[in-house]
């Protein structure tokens, strides 16, 4: 079974600075998808970014980018120019071939200091 690990329960960053959230996963599959979801205090879980494993190019969405290291099974999220609205829980998730389902990491709470 696949597992997803987020080793940082909490992180903090100064407004306007850059922060990187870590995620590692374990799988024997070669074709899969990885996701970062954001859950702000309003609780609505929002998709931040998606990476397809067969694509070597790292996904980017505005201030959010990933560092996808397939061999190392690592999928970190970089947030540039952090804003107060980035404060949230962030979940890393894996989607493989065995069932249309996500496997989630335990989450990282990001605090943004003004």
């Amino acid at each position, binding site marked *: 079974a696949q597992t997803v690990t987020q080793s940082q*329960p909490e992180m903090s960053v100064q407004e306007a600075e850059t922060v990187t959230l870590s995620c590692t996963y374990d799988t024997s599959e070669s074709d899969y*998808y990885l*996701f970062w*979801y954001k859950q702000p205090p*309003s*609780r*609505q*879980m*929002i*998709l931040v970014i*998606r990476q397809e494993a067969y694509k070597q190019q790292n996904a980017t969405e505005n201030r959010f980018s990933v560092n996808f290291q397939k061999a190392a099974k690592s999928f970190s999220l970089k947030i540039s120019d952090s804003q107060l609205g980035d404060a949230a829980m962030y*979940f890393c998730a894996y*989607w493989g071939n065995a069932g*249309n*389902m*996500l496997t*989630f*990491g*335990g*989450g990282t709470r990001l605090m943004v200091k003004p």
Partner: protein
Amino acid sequence: DVKVTQSSRYLVKRTGEKVFLECVQDMDHENMFWYRQDPGLGLRLIYFSYDVKMKEKGDIPEGYSVSREKKERFSLILESASTNQTSMYLCASSSTTPGYTFGSGTRLTVV
């Protein structure tokens, strides 16, 4: 805008009550999921469904049941609510396209 709607944002119920949490999606998704979210424990899968009238147990099904009579609706049922079921409940749906669409969550308090 596609949606997953959870009927209640906050619920307070008494111990022993039968509780229904409703989730409706308008995207014609085949797959629907119920999770509970607790501090320090992340998201834990309770039940899921890949089709109408079909259900599968997740990691923590004890004390819960589900109903999926129509494709768009997936109900979570607490047969006899207990205080240890106080939690945030999240519903999600998906199709064959990877990824979920989530509802906005129901915070249930059992007193």
